[in-house]
């Protein structure tokens, strides 16, 4: 399998990358690790005319502590996140989530920025950024924006990113008590259901991926939370549950409840 032809530009700065994006618009795609994009290009399901490689841009692959937040650069790989001391110490749920993605090889190459921008409805990070109330930092022709996770995912493979915007970092509040529960699709190992739970005293925040066309905050669960797992019954309240060959809507809704219960009790 070989992609259709394209031009490849290795961007050396964010400004250059954004300029290129603005110029090529619909025809351009940003690549970092490439593990969401390149398989689609090989199948020729996607054929960008221009590929803008941002992997070499300095300053996008660090993990730092800033003002009580852990800031993860967009180009950080899943393995880098999974093994980061800072992340493990302060946002353990993020490290756990990263460890469930793909396989060793994919985790060595795929990046958090790429995964979030791709917004696969079965990706793992979305649940966790939602539950953590992380902020997605983006830069575009019109400058910098900080997008709260809850506003970021707008549908299947669609996000609040404008055509000329690039994710630069994800800012995570510190999370003391959180867990990520994943039910694997047996072929792709994507999430049939992924549930991120962040507990803070008597309150809880729950992010769910895989269930609907877009990841969501399970606000009904959060409101009904009573310190036990019983609020899990509300996992799919008001949600249009997806159906596919592996999990029809009924089973998927059931799994969501099971995973949320595990999360609440975990």
């Amino acid at each position, binding site marked *: 399998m070989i992609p259709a032809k394209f031009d490849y530009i290795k961007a050396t700065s964010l400004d250059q990358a954004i300029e290129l994006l603005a110029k090529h618009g619909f025809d351009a795609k940003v690549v970092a690790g490439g593990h969401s994009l390149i398989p689609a290009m090989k199948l020729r399901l996607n054929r960008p005319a221009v590929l803008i490689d941002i992997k070499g841009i300095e300053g996008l692959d660090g993990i730092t502590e800033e003002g009580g937040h852990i800031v993860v650069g967009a180009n950080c790989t899943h393995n880098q996140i999974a093994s980061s001391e800072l992340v493990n110490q302060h946002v353990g749920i993020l490290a756990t989530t990263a460890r469930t993605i793909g396989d*060793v090889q994919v985790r*060595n190459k795929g990046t958090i920025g790429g995964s979030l921008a791709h917004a696969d409805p079965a990706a793992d990070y979305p649940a966790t950024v939602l539950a953590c109330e992380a902020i997605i930092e983006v830069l575009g022709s019109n400058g910098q924006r900080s997008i709260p996770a809850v506003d970021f995912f707008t549908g299947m493979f669609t996000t609040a990113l404008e055509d000329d915007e690039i994710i630069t970092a994800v800012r995570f509040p510190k999370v003391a008590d959180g867990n990520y529960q994943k039910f694997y699709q047996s072929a792709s190992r994507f999430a049939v259901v992924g549930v991120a739970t962040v507990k803070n005293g008597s309150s809880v925040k729950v992010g769910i991926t895989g269930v609907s066309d877009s990841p969501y905050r399970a606000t009904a669960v959060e409101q009904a939370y009573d310190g036990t797992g019983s609020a899990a019954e509300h996992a799919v309240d008001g949600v249009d549950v997806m159906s596919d060959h592996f999990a029809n809507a009924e089973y998927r809704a059931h799994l969501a409840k099971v995973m949320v219960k595990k999360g609440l009790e975990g």
Partner: protein
Amino acid sequence: MRVTLTVNGKPYSDDLEPRTLLAHYLRDTLNLTGTHVGCDTSNCGACTILMDGKAVKSCTILAVQADGSEITTIEGMANGGELHPIQQAFKENHGLQCGFCTPGMVMTAADILQNNPNPTEQEVRHGLEGNFCRCTGYHNIVKSVLHASELIK
């Protein structure tokens, strides 16, 4: 587009179409045909190589993305006629049958053992989740990796 990189310790520089996948560059341009391609969707792991010391799937990386990197393929594992301990362990434990997935298994095993020199059975099994084998039922592959961890000590 010019790509300059090191493969198995030797420098290479070639003009390539940007769409050339690293796996195809290794196989077709450098004639390193030990790296195999078994699927289109980054699942099977037959194309696994080490890029800057880490296991990656070379069918999902453009050669231009590998510019400046250091690559190790299966051909770079043995030292002359002497097999690498992982290769040795696969041989001693019958960790291969048709041999097609084998290079990818060996390269993934190298990554696993680098990060975890004393893995448990479950850690080895989990580490191999990105590599399909259709012949061995993984039984002897898992044994091989566990044995390799002993040999490397």
